[in-house]
């Protein structure tokens, strides 16, 4: 079992590296960095306005630390055929799972680290004591580990008290934040040790629930592939189509130029699992900064970057349409495929520009902002429609 884990772990590492190369290579990352920078700036501006003793700081800290205890998940690296081929090895499954636990705990530390860095100023502002802040972050780490161990217990048949344990972890984090960090951390260490010994017992006596473990892992891999599919083509991804009847108005607007291709592009963009969701998320994220920030320059730039990010993701709709052989069998002019894509993209830019400028007006109704926003959106529209989209299609055709 050790050998199997080693093999799979290496393969998994290789797969992650392969996709990371696509993620980090893309100029999208530059735009994203800019976006994260903008968010960071807005966050730091917000921090400057805070004063110690604000009533909502403790509830906010509790909420964030509580959520951070749930960012971990078992990395099992199990595959569908395992339930047949590895069934005979079930007696040794704990060897495999122990390696998997080590890996899962280690991996969960990264999001915790990022979260802790982000929340550190708030913790410092509230508690003014480095030791207390350290204890609270350590408590969160123990809470996170406890939850991961609970997830492993769920992979075996029998009663599991996942919800109770999760609530207990959150309650102890709450005690740590609100009353006594020491009490919280002691409680969490106690529940962690209990969970660890319980897992040891289950390893010895329990019966492994293959179907569940495989499902847990395949769900995790799907989420991972989904993330990578934002940047590149992922073979293993299952498309999850949603009807989104509420967005029919947008479909009609996008396909106002009534052709076979705009009919296809608009529907695929709005309904496909990845693209529709992504457009919505980017618009909301952009709107958040537009609505809350007062900095005209930041808002104008974020507005333009949001439009840019949306279009460079949506333009990929060309691929599924182009790859369906029927566009070459229908009696239509295939040359229109490109022109019609530009028409749909133009309308997407229009939606994004108008929406973001309108939201921006809430916190800043000045002429400078409107002018700046219109100019920036216009400039980005020209870059996208005259340079990026045609170049992208040319690349795909080759």
């Amino acid at each position, binding site marked *: 079992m050790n050998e199997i884990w080693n093999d799979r772990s290496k393969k998994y590492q290789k797969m992650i590296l392969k996709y990371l190369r696509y993620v980090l290579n893309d100029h999208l990352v530059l735009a994203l960095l800019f976006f994260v920078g903008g968010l960071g700036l807005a966050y730091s501006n917000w921090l400057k306005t805070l004063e110690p003793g604000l009533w909502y700081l403790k509830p906010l800290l509790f909420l964030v630390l509580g959520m951070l205890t749930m960012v971990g998940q078992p990395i099992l690296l199990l595959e569908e055929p395992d339930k047949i081929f590895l069934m005979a090895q079930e007696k040794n499954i704990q060897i495999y799972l122990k390696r998997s636990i080590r890996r899962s705990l280690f991996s969960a530390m990264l999001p915790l680290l990022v979260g802790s860095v982000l929340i550190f100023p708030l913790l410092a502002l509230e508690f003014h004591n480095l030791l207390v802040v350290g204890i609270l972050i350590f408590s969160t780490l123990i809470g996170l580990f406890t939850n991961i161990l609970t997830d492993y217990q769920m992979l075996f048949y029998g009663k599991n008290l996942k919800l109770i344990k999760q609530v207990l972890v959150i309650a102890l984090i709450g005690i740590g934040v609100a009353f006594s960090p020491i009490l919280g951390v002691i409680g969490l260490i106690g529940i962690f040790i209990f969970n660890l010994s319980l897992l040891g017992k289950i390893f010895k006596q329990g019966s492994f629930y293959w179907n569940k473990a495989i499902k847990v892992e395949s769900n995790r891999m799907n989420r991972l592939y989904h993330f990578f599919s934002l940047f590149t083509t992922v073979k293993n991804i299952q498309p999850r189509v949603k009807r989104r009847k509420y967005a029919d108005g947008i479909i009609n607007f996008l396909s106002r130029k009534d052709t076979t291709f705009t*009919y296809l592009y608009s*529907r695929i963009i709005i*309904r496909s699992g990845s693209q529709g969701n992504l457009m919505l998320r980017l618009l909301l994220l952009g709107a958040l900064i537009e609505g809350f920030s007062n900095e005209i320059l930041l808002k104008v730039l974020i507005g333009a970057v949001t439009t840019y990010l949306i279009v460079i993701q949506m333009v990929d709709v060309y691929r*599924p349409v182009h790859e369906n*052989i*029927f566009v070459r*069998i*229908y*009696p239509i*002019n295939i040359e229109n495929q490109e022109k019609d894509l530009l028409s749909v993209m133009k309308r997407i830019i229009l939606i994004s520009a108008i929406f973001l400028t309108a939201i921006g007006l809430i916190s800043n109704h000045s002429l400078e902002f409107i002018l700046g926003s219109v100019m920036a959106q216009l400039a980005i529209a020209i870059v996208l429609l005259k340079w990026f989209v045609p170049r992208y299609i040319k690349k795909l055709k080759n």
Partner: protein
Amino acid sequence: MTLSIEHLTGGYTQTPVIKDINFDVKNGELMGLIGLNGAGKSTTINHIIGLMQPMKGKILLDGVDLWQQPEEYKSKLAYIPEMPILYDELTLREHIELTIKAYEMNPTQAWKTANELLKTFRLDNKLDWFPANFSKGMRQKVMIVCAFMTNAELFIVDEPFLGLDPLAIDDLLNVINEKKRSGASILMSTHVLDTAEKYCDRFALLNEGKLKAVGTLNDFQIKYQAPQQSLNDIYLAIAKCDRHE
């Protein structure tokens, strides 16, 4: 409507898969394109529907050349692939609307035809379903409805008997007969020879990329001196003979 294939040679790379194919499909005729796996049926079809460019030869539909006037040629043709090809993001209703748009049909008239076909294939209450909700057989029926609702004059049907239940096969054969009566031509590739023998008017027998014979069963029985023998027997004899050569 007459489809004429003249000296067609073609393939995926430099080496031709099909060599010097000649046959035609006449007005109101169901022609069976017969061959084993790898005989060149799909390659021939891919050339006829314009997905592959011939190395040599011509493909004409009532004198309209596929590569000279592609849009006019394609407006007369509808295709049902062996494996259903649908857009995951479009409902059944939208696949029909898309077909109406692509073939520039009159929506009222087209929907009337489509509704009749949907009823025949028991899809009339599934108009708002996405392909993900359909079984393989249902997807195949969607392809059949979308093709036969058009006013095309040539229908290319690739291996229609795989994945369809017996009732659907019977319904499909009825629809084909109706189209034949209205003057359309149909080219159907298959290796289910018993059914082909029963329904096709003529056959084009392909083996190893070459056209071995074109004609009716009666023609073959005379040509190969095999009276009373079925299409299956005659085709197997040809294929086995080629293998030994």
